[in-house]
């Protein structure tokens, strides 16, 4: 995700580090200029101590950023892994569903603000519900139009149809909303200072808290849904054996539709969180985010729900840490390379079940 606030910030830090690795150990540039005026401790060991603290503080900040980004990826990845588990296809359009969710959140936010609503929590709640509802309908419609007729076709057909659908969605939002990036002013401001060590401040902003808490709540809800409800049971039944499930009275079509609806709703939440966190949406953001979320799903072992979340967090962390310590430009390359490396050694991902080769 290029051109975002986060990457710009880390870019500055990375540049500082390149200029002066010792002084800028995880700090903003001006901090290193101010270093001589800071109270000096007696002796070298204290200085060293402080530098190690700086390092830890910097790492802690990156960890927070990575976990927040990872939550967003995880929410998208669940949609991929769920659809893969039940229908056995890569829903290539899922990343673009995420993008549509971001757009709908943006538009509904604009409308709510312009009709004079000022209470931020109310606005956020309405935006969340509206974008989840409409995006879920997108998921449902796409399944109905592009995937259901191909249910019993050969394997490649739904995937190609999904690639086509992804192009349709990208182009649809480009044509209907224009190609330019849509920025919004920060909606939620403020935050807490967690740690201040050696001149480096570890901050946890309110947006980050909201993203993480929303993700945790949704995950809990979702886990409950899969484990305890009738729908969840139907979904697990369809995952194991669709024909048998149908024989035992499970409405397979409806269950698959609901899978897409839930996946799209979670992607819509991810889109809204992305909008809140980075303050922008554009029509192409779904492609890269989608590939990375799919990477996350595969990394965690496709078909496994905890795996998707774990993979999302890992990809978020890898990406953030790589931008912080190595180079911002190659963060995507790093994420994809780690995917390839993991798959060489664990061909079914981290938590995936090994497939038995049958003759």
């Amino acid at each position, binding site marked *: 995700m290029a051109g975002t606030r986060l990457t710009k910030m880390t870019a500055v830090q990375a540049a500082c580090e390149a200029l002066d690795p010792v002084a800028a150990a995880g700090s903003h540039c001006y901090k290193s200029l101010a270093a001589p005026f800071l109270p000096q401790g007696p002796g070298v060991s204290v200085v060293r101590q402080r530098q190690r603290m700086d390092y830890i503080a910097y790492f802690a900040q990156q960890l927070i950023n990575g976990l927040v980004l990872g939550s967003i990826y995880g929410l998208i990845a669940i949609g991929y892994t769920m659809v893969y588990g039940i229908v056995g296809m*890569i829903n290539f359009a899922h990343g673009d569903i995420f993008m549509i969710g971001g757009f709908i959140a943006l538009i509904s936010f604009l409308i709510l603000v312009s009709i004079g609503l000022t209470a931020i929590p109310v606005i956020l709640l309405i935006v969340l519900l509206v974008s989840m509802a409409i995006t879920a309908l997108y998921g449902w419609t796409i399944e109905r*139009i592009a995937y259901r007729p*191909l249910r019993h076709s050969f394997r490649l057909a739904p995937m190609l149809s999904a690639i086509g659908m992804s192009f349709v969605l990208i182009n649809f939002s480009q044509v209907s909303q224009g190609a330019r990036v849509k920025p919004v002013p920060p909606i939620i401001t403020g935050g807490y200072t967690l740690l201040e060590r050696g001149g480096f401040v570890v901050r946890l902003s309110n947006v980050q808290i909201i993203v993480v808490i929303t993700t945790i709540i949704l995950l809990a809800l979702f886990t409950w849904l899969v484990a305890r409800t009738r729908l969840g049971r139907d979904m697990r039944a369809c995952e194991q054996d669709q024909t048998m499930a149908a024989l035992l009275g499970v409405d397979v079509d409806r269950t698959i539709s609901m899978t897409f609806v839930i996946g799209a709703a979670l992607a819509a939440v991810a889109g809204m969180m992305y909008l809140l966190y980075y303050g922008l949406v554009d029509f192409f953001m779904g492609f890269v985010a989608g590939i990375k979320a799919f990477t996350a799903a595969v990394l965690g072992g496709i078909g496994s729900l905890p795996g998707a979340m774990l993979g999302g967090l890992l990809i978020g962390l890898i990406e953030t840490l790589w931008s912080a310590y190595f180079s911002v430009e190659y963060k995507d390359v790093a994420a994809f390379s780690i995917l390839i490396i993991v798959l060489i050694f664990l*061909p079914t991902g981290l938590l995936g079940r090994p497939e038995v080769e049958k003759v």
Partner: protein
Amino acid sequence: MTGPASGPVPNSRAAGAAFIFKKSLISALVALVLFSLMIGIRTEAGSTGQLIYWTRLPELATMVLTVFFGSIVIELLRQWWGPVTTIRIVPKPIARGLAVARRGVAPVLLIFTFLVPVIFYNQRYILDLGILVLTYVMLGWGLNVVVGLAGLLDLGYVAFYAVGAYSYALLATNFGLSFWICLPLAGILAALWGVMLGFPVLRLRGDYLAIVTLAFGEIIRLVIINWQSLTGGPNGVSGIPRPSLFGIPLTPGDDGLAARLGIEFSPTHRIVFLFYLILALALLTNWVTIRLRRLPIGRAWEALREDEVACRALGINTTTTKLTAFATGAMFGGFAGAFFATRQGFISPESFTFQESALVLAIVVLGGMGSQLGVALAALAMIGGFELFRGFDQYRMLVFGIAMVLLMIWRPRGLIGHRAPTIFLRHSQAISSDLVKEGAG
């Protein structure tokens, strides 16, 4: 967007009408909700950077009404056409005629292609289009080796196209090497990258293979964008030398081809030359593929596609089989890339996005997986169809996407049909894309 698709088939005519009306109404309602925010409201960054929005209710109403009437029409067509499962029997004479025609298509098409520069000598546009179509035919035939023959799903084919293009561009602009030296080099380099991709995916199956090849394609593109000192980054490489006819440049100068032959110089000469060049390269790809199919390695590819476990049991080395498939496909991609670079004179990472991979894969699948003629016809249909929408540039990908979805629903096994395996034991089983599962075949 037609909304709900199937339902109980009504008996009486009146019930049918009510049924259609109800369905279309639901579709229109769904469309209304879907488009309410995305089309009904348009956002744009205002002059101060603040987002502003305005409503577009007429457009929204038009879209919803289009969906409503469109879905009535589709529903009527569906009832008129009858259930999809009905088998339509083609009368025998017509079937025989079709079979004869089918056999004749390939030679006629080949002769016509040879004559294109003669017939359309003065129509630069058609010649350019022909070159473009042939480039995609070549890419399709190259990918066909990997997907159609060996049954390995490759979503990152464009990476090899990029490697070929950049190999030629950088070798030619930095070291002044000629096209004819760079062409094999580009092919070899691309093949090496194919082997490099092949190694990590040897053990992978299914969608893991798809995602790794996709990631590989993205890695190559990202490295090209970011390695600015070598590749020029997003600005690309410009001033790539044009090809020469074995050392004789196609320029108006004294040593140019026109001067040597004693004819008047025309810029069309170069276009015609490029046309025959890509035609030769494409035919080379085709010939090599057809010949390889009859060699042990080609047989091994097809066996791998059919059953990997059986392959291993029979002592076929699946490692080398997979790697050679990747390398061969990549080499042809590299040739096509070098040609692309010399034809354009300028390349940038924008030409090597995932869309290209998807387009080439769509051509292979629509061509019926493994059928050489099918791939050529599918490339012609796809690129030609693209050109029809040149005027509406911003809607092009929209139409391409819709076409892909519709074609998958209508002819999921390809436009042209299947190809039988080169050899078989007792009965020939039709080949189709079912077999491209996952490198497992």
